[in-house]
């Protein structure tokens, strides 16, 4: 049976034009710049100094507190220093700059291509490995994985849900992992199950990736307790709450974590990274990034070392196409525009997308006629037109009363708005401002 969530959602043109491009390693060279803060939570503390020699996979910045993550070197070479580097939005943050020299890996990393199916590790050992490897959620939020897998007292987990929806248009890196690294992925799922002591795992995949569904269904017969769930393509099915609703039918209550429903959601890339961290001792220093766009010469799915300049990825895909209007980090719905292509990639980078000038142009803004298309499209059940107006007028108390905190910034409202109002622009601003009111009283 093909499942989906009921409330809201849209289905933009899929444009998965890079779906057939096999994963490709991008060799590091030149200088890589690795941010000490690539996750939600406290920035990691740098433990290397200028002039130090580092190897691939060596710890270079240590997690600072529980909600934080280790950062490892993605290359071997000499540390040039810690500098303030502009990220893809032009915001300057401290980064460790390393001159690449050769490609020497830490000895304990298993680089053999054989699949390690050994599942004898205990839950504690698995969690320790994940913490050590500096894993973060690769779906975009970059929340430290070990924190997510630590179940709060008094709660019990019942199932692991693997998010293979990849509902954003254009993106295909999860799809390629499911096709090419299926076996590793399933071992990763088994490890996650063990880490949180559950017997059941679901992998939700949208039916526009039928080959991935077939591949994983075939492979999963060898493993117990893994169910592949076909999902009807609909955006934002990859949202945590929407995915839980689609697969289990359970609703995550307002202001609660998914654990309330007994589910823990993990992204495909994260699950693959769990496999690599636990079975191969490989910390998170490379990730898969889709480079795509209608006018791009070649569509690519790269495996890229963290800290590689975005311009190198663009170059490897044949250079920036003519009449590019906008470059986006991530998908067209939730991704953010790249204003600086010299910026390095992050652990959570998922795609570099080129939008043509004609597509990038926003429509002319007109007046809201209360057509309520945005209300119908909102997967949370909010009233975007109202939140927009309240945010514009900076009415924070009212925003708080109208549950602005629940907005996932998916952009469905803006996508459907016939008046081309900058709904998400303002709601996001209002949310940040109102959150200060909401968090303060504690």
């Amino acid at each position, binding site marked *: 049976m093909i499942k989906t969530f009921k409330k809201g959602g849209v289905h933009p043109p899929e444009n998965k034009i890079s779906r057939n491009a096999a994963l490709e390693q991008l060799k590091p060279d030149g200088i890589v710049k690795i941010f000490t803060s690539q996750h939600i939570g406290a920035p990691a503390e740098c433990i290397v100094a200028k002039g130090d020699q580092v190897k691939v996979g060596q710890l270079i910045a240590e997690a600072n507190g529980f909600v934080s993550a280790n950062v490892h070197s993605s290359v071997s070479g000499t540390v040039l220093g810690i500098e303030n580097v502009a990220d893809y*939005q*032009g*915001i300057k943050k401290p980064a460790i700059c390393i001159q690449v020299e050769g490609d020497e890996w830490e000895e304990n990393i298993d680089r053999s291509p054989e699949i390690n199916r050994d599942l004898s590790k205990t839950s504690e050992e698995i969690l320790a490995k994940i913490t050590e490897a500096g894993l973060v959620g690769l779906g975009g939020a970059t929340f430290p994985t070990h924190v997510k897998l630590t179940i709060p007292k008094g709660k019990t987990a019942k199932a692991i849900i693997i998010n293979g929806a990849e509902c954003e248009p254009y993106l295909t890196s999860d799809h390629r992992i499911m096709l090419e690294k299926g076996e590793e992925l399933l071992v990763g799922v088994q490890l996650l199950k063990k880490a949180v002591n559950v017997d059941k795992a679901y992998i939700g995949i949208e039916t526009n990736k039928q080959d991935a569904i077939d591949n994983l269904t075939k492979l999963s017969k060898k493993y117990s307790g893994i169910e592949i769930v076909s999902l009807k393509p609909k955006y934002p099915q990859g949202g945590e709450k929407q995915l839980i609703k689609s697969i289990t039918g359970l609703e995550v209550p307002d202001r609660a974590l998914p654990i309330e429903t007994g589910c823990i959601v993990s992204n495909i890339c994260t699950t693959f990274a769990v496999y690599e961290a636990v079975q191969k001792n490989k910390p998170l220093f490379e990730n898969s990034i889709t480079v795509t766009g209608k006018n791009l010469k070649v569509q690519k799915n790269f495996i890229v070392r963290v800290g590689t300049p975005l311009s190198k990825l663009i170059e490897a895909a044949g250079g920036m196409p003519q009449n590019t209007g906008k470059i986006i980090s991530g998908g067209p719905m939730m991704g*953010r525009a790249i*204003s600086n292509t010299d910026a390095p990639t992050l652990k959570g980078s998922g795609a570099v997308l080129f939008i043509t000038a004609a597509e*990038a142009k926003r429509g002319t803004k007109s007046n809201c006629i209360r057509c309520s298309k945005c209300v119908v499209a909102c997967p949370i059940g909010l009233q975007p037109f109202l939140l927009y107006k309240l945010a514009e007028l900076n009415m924070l108390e009212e925003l708080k009363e109208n549950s602005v905190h629940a907005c996932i910034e998916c952009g469905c409202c803006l996508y459907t708005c016939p008046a081309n109002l900058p709904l998400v622009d*303002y709601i*996001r601003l209002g949310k940040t401002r109102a959150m200060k009111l909401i968090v303060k009283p504690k």
Partner: protein
Amino acid sequence: MDSTILITVIMLGVLAATLAVVLYIVAQKFKVVEDERIGETENILPGANCGGCGYTGCHAFAEALVNADDIAAMFCPVGGNATMVKIAEYLNKKVETKDSAIAVVRCAGSCENRSRVNEFDGAVSCAVMAATYSGDTDCSYGCLGRGDCVSVCNFGAIYINGETMLPEVDEDKCTACGACVKACPKLIIELRKKGTKSRRIYVSCVNKDKGAVARKACKTACIGCAACRKACGFESILIENFLAYIDPNKCRLCRKCVEVCPTGSIVELNFPPRKPKVEIQEQKTNNLNSENATN
């Protein structure tokens, strides 16, 4: 027929009288007694309701003035010293006269000085833009030019100059209420001492990047070279994070720093045009003499 009219009149009359009595009793019982001085004080205040005093409006400020024992720290920027003195006289309290202030925009990154490297097509709001990314130029500190300061100004005292795309302050209209200071997400606008004859000198830049980076992004950026600090004879210039700041309380408006600034990021306002060099020299010696005399 006659009796019907009579009964109606009597009935309504009795009803009206009863209700009048009830209304009178209720009005007496629930009467809100407000200190009449509050109303009077409010009348003295300019009635702009701008919030520049830190209260929600003129009425709230009047209430606070009446209830406070010491009003020395309270100030109405719109009415200024004259209004505060009047209020103090009326309330029999003491106020301190304050230097009048004015808003200054500390960014000179016009289109000419600071080239645009990308185009922002989101909502026309500095706050939205600042929350999204570093801005449409290489300077991540400078003015975004979307006019949040203009839309909050109650007095029409700030406007965007069409040529430079930077906000400019109308000196006659600015009341130093501070609304624009709060609205600017880049913290560019500062309330500064108005100065004698409205003469002011300030560093028109807030870029904290290293000199070379700042200079690359904007022709008139402060590069933190400290030439102004060396030139200043009154120790009024502080340099922190490659950025100079002129302390208005120490500055004697000698304009030496303006002359030595290599990027022209120090701005002087309302000064008479400079005299030719020779005369300046003479004047300097005169000044020195007079200083020596005072010492």
